[in-house]
C-alpha cells in the first residue's frame, strides 16, 4: 500500500521508493529507504502534509510525496492482544538485539502466539515460551 | 492527599477559571461589535484568544483527570496560552506606563490611569493550576 494510505498511529515498513528527480533524492537522503520502519505521527488539519516518525526523527511529507513510497503495514508487538497468532516482519535494533531475539525464536518470517499481553509479555515461539520486556515489545514488528 | 486528588483539584480549579475566561472572552468580542453588555475591554482578537485557551483547557479536562496524556496535552497548551496572554498584557501595561511618562516629559501630567485588564488577574490565578504539568511523568497513554 502507499505510505499516504496509513492512518495516524499506524506503522509500516518501507518496501519501495519510486518517483524521480529531486523528490526521489530527497527521500533517499532523509533515510526513506526499503527496510526502514516508518510511523504516522499525525495529519495536518487539512490532511496534508503528514508528519512521520522515522529513525527517531519527525519528518513532514506532502501527500503527493508520500505516494511515491510503498509500505507494508505492520504493528508493534506490544499492541497484540492475547490469543492472537502473528508473523514477525522486522526487528528494530542492532546486531545485539537481533541476536537476543533469535535465541528466543523471534526471527522475521516466523510465527508467534501471544500468551500474556504487555507488559511484560509472554509469547510462544517454536523454541518455547518467553518473557518479552516493554522495551523489546516496542521494537518487534509483526503482521 | 494522593496524586489523583491533587490533579483533580487543579483541573477543576482551572476549569472554573476557564469558564469565567470564556465569558470574559465572549464579552470582549461582543463589546467590540458594539453591544455594550459587559464592562469589558473591546477587543476582538483578545477575546478570541481567551476563548481558544479556555476551550483547550476544558476540552482536555476530563482526560487529564483520568491521567491520560491525550488530555494533558490540551490542558498544558491551554494553560500555556492563558499564561502567555497574561504575560502579554502585563508587558503591555508596563510599556504603556513607560510610554505615558515619556510623552509626559515637559508637560504637566496626571498620574497614569491604571487599569488592570482581566487577563492579568487570570494570569496569576492560572499559575496555581500548573501542578498536572509538573506530574506529567505519572500519566499514561490511552492504550495502556
Amino acid at each position, binding site marked *: 500500500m502507499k505510505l499516504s494510505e496509513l492512518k495516524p498511529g499506524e506503522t509500516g515498513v518501507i518496501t519501495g521508493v519510486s518517483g524521480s528527480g529531486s523528490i526521489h533524492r530527497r527521500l533517499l537522503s532523509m533515510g526513506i529507504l*526499503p527496510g526502514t520502519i516508518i510511523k504516522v505521527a499525525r495529519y495536518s488539519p487539512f490532511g496534508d*502534509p503528514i*508528519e512521520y516518525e522515522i529513525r527517531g*526523527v519527525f519528518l*513532514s511529507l506532502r501527500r503527493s510525496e508520500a505516494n511515491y513510497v510503498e509500505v507494508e503495514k505492520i504493528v508493534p508487538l506490544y499492541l497484540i492482544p492475547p490469543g492472537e497468532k502473528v508473523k514477525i516482519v522486522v526487528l528494530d535494533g542492532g546486531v545485539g538485539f537481533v541476536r537476543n531475539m533469535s535465541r528466543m525464536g523471534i526471527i522475521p518470517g516466523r510465527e508467534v502466539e501471544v500468551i500474556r499481553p504487555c507488559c511484560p509479555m509472554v509469547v510462544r515461539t517454536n523454541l518455547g515460551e518467553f518473557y518479552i520486556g516493554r522495551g523489546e515489545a516496542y521494537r518487534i514488528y509483526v503482521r | 492527599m494522593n496524586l489523583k486528588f491533587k490533579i483533580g483539584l487543579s483541573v477543576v480549579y482551572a476549569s472554573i477559571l476557564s469558564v469565567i475566561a470564556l465569558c470574559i472572552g465572549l464579552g470582549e468580542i461582543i463589546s467590540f461589535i458594539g453591544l455594550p453588555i459587559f464592562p469589558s475591554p473591546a477587543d476582538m482578537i483578545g477575546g478570541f484568544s481567551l476563548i481558544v485557551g479556555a476551550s483547550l483547557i476544558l476540552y482536555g479536562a476530563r482526560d487529564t483527570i483520568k491521567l491520560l496524556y491525550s488530555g494533558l496535552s490540551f490542558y498544558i*497548551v491551554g494553560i500555556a496560552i492563558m499564561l502567555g496572554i497574561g504575560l502579554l498584557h502585563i508587558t503591555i501595561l508596563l*510599556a504603556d506606563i513607560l510610554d505615558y511618562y515619556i510623552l509626559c516629559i515637559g508637560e504637566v501630567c496626571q498620574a497614569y490611569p491604571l487599569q488592570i485588564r482581566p487577563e492579568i488577574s487570570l494570569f496569576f490565578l492560572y499559575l496555581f493550576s500548573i501542578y498536572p504539568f509538573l506530574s506529567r511523568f505519572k500519566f499514561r497513554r490511552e492504550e495502556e
Partner: protein
Amino acid sequence: MLIALAGNPNTGKSSLFNAITGAHQHIGNWPGVTVEKKEGFAIFEGEKIKVVDLPGTYSLTAYSLEEIIARDFILKEEPDVVVDVIDATNLERNLYLLTELMELTDRIVVALNMFDEAKKKYKIDVEKMRKLLGLPVVPTVAIKGVGVDDLLREAVRGTFHPKKIDYPEDVEKRIEALENLLKNLNIKNPRWHAIKLIENDGEVRRKIASLGSKNILHMAEHMRHEIEDIYGDDIETLMASFRYSFAHGLFHEVAVPLNVGGVTITDMIDHVIAHKIFGLPIFLVVMYLSFQFVFTVAAPFQDAIDLIFNGKDLASGGHINGLIDLSYNWMASFLPAWASSFINYGMFRGLAAVLTFTPIIMLLFFILSLLEDSGYLARVAFLMDRLMRKIGMEGRGVISLMLGFGCNVPAIMSTRALKNERERKLSIALNPIIPCGARIQVFAFLTSIFFKENQALVLWSLLLLSMAVVAILGYIYSKTIFKGEGEPFVMELPPYRVPSLKGITIHMWEKSEGFLKKAGTIIILAAGIVWLAAALPWGVEFGGKESLIGQFAKFMAPIGAPFGITPEAIIALFFGFFAKEVVIDVFSVLYGSKDVLLAAMSPIQAYSLLLFILFYTPCVATLGAIYEETRSLRFVLFVILEGFTLALFFSFLVYNIGSLLGVGV
C-alpha cells in the same frame, strides 16, 4: 591549519562556528553563487587555525549547489581536518553524512553536538563510537561552548585511523576494479571517484570525461547495470541503503534509547498544535501575541527616540529642542541657513526616521528568531503548507507574509529561507501588498477622523481586502508569471526546545544589522531628496504651493480627481513614498487641525484614499530591500507598477461606484 565544518542543516553548526571563531569571522558568499560562506579563525595553543563553515547538507551528491560546494572544498582545498557536526538527538540520520564524508577524507573529527539534549534521549557510548569509527569523537554543546576546546585539541593532535566502510562483496569488487583503473589517472582519492562513478554522479563523470577516459566511464556504466540487476533496484537507492545500514548498525551499537515508547513534550504539544480544529486558531493566537508584543514594547522606545531627535511641541505652546534642532542651530552659526536646513531637517531627519523604526525591526526579528529556535516555525510551515500551495508557495512562505504586517523590509529579507527561486520571487512580489505597521498607523489616524463610529470595522475591511488580494494575486501569479515546479517538501520537525536568550539575541542582531545598513542609507538619501523637492525653487514656502512638490500636486490634481484624491493628499502620498508614517505629519501640517481635515474630504473620498495608500507603492526602504534580494531593477519596477495598478483600480472603482450610489458623499 585549515578546518572545515560539515554537517546536516540545523545541527548547531553555526553555533559551533561562532564558539570557535568568536568575533574573528567574515561572512560572504561562495564565489559566483548566492550561498553564504562563513570564514573565520581561532588561536588555539599558539597555533592559528582557519575555519570554514561549509553549507549544511544531508548528503554529498552532485544534485544541489550546497553539496557540490561542500565536497569540492574538501577535495580541492584539502583541509587538515573536517569536523562533522552531528545532532546527537538525531544520531542515525546524521551518521549517513558521516559515511559519505569518510569516503571523501580520512581526517575527520566527529562533534556530537546538542549532547545535553541527546543524553535525555539515548545512553551514548562515546568510547565505543571512537573505537568503531577509528576517529576522534567529542561530545559538545555548542551554544554553551562546552567541548569546544576538546574538539580543537583533537583536531590539532588527534589520531585518525578510520575504518573502511564495506559494501557488499559484489559491489566492493567492482569498486576496487574501477579504483585501480583510476589510480593510473593520477587523481586524488581514486576510491571515492570510483564509488561516485558507479553511482552515476554527474560531476565526477564530467571530470573523468575531461581527462579523456571514456572507457572507464563505459566500464562504470556497465558495472552499475550489473549491480542494479543483481539487487533489483536503482543504483541511488541501493547505495543509499548500503550506507544507511552502516549508519543504522553503528547507531544501535553505540546508542541505547531511553524511555522507549514514552511520550515526549514535543509529541504532546504537536498533538494539539496540529489538531484539526484547534490548530489554526492556536496559530492565530500566537500571531496575535507576537504582533501585540512587538508593537507595544516598541512604542515607548520609538517615542523616546522621536523625543530625543525631534524634540516636542508642548501643549502649553512652547517647544523642546531635539538633537536635530540643536544641530541646526549650531550649524547655522557657520553655514548658510539653507545648508544647515538641508543637512539637519533633510538628511538628519531621515536618520532619525530610520532609528525610530529600528525598535520595531529588532523586535520583529527577536520574535522571529524566538519562534524559529523554539521549533514552532516548522509547525507553522507544516500547518499552512496546503493553503500556501494554493497561492503558489510552500508552508514556510507564510512566515514572510506574516512578517509583512510588521514591516515589509524584514519580511522580504526573510524570503531567503525559501530555497526555490521562483517561490522566493513570488513571495517578494506579493509582500508589498501586505500593509505594514506604518501603513496601519496611517489608517488608524485617518479612520479615527473620518470613520469615528466604525473605525475598527473600516480598519478590518482594509486588512481583509489586502489579504484577499494577496491570495487572489498569488493564485493568478502561480498560474502565469511565476508558474513552475515546487520544491520537495520533505521537512524535518525538530523537537521543541527552550531557546537560549543568547542565541536569539545573536540572530536578532545579525538580521537587524542588515536592515539598518540597507534601509538606513536609502532612507537618509531619500529624505535629502524630499527636502530638496520641498525647498526648491529658492525662497518658496517649505512644502507650499510654489515648491516643486506643490507644483507637482497642482499638476496632478486633475489626475487625482477621478479617484477622489485631493491635491493635498497627493503631496502626502508623495512624502509617503519615503516613509509611510510621514503621511500623518503631512496632513497635520497641511490642514492644521482635525476638523479642517474632516471637512476637506467626503467619506467616500477618504475611503478611496485609504485604498490608494494600502496599495500604491511600498516605501523606499522596501524597494531597496527588494532590489537587494533580487538584484533586478526590472523587478523593482514591476512591484511599483503592480502597486499603482492595484491602487488606481480599487480607488477608481470604489470612488465612482460610491459616488454613483450616493454613498458617503
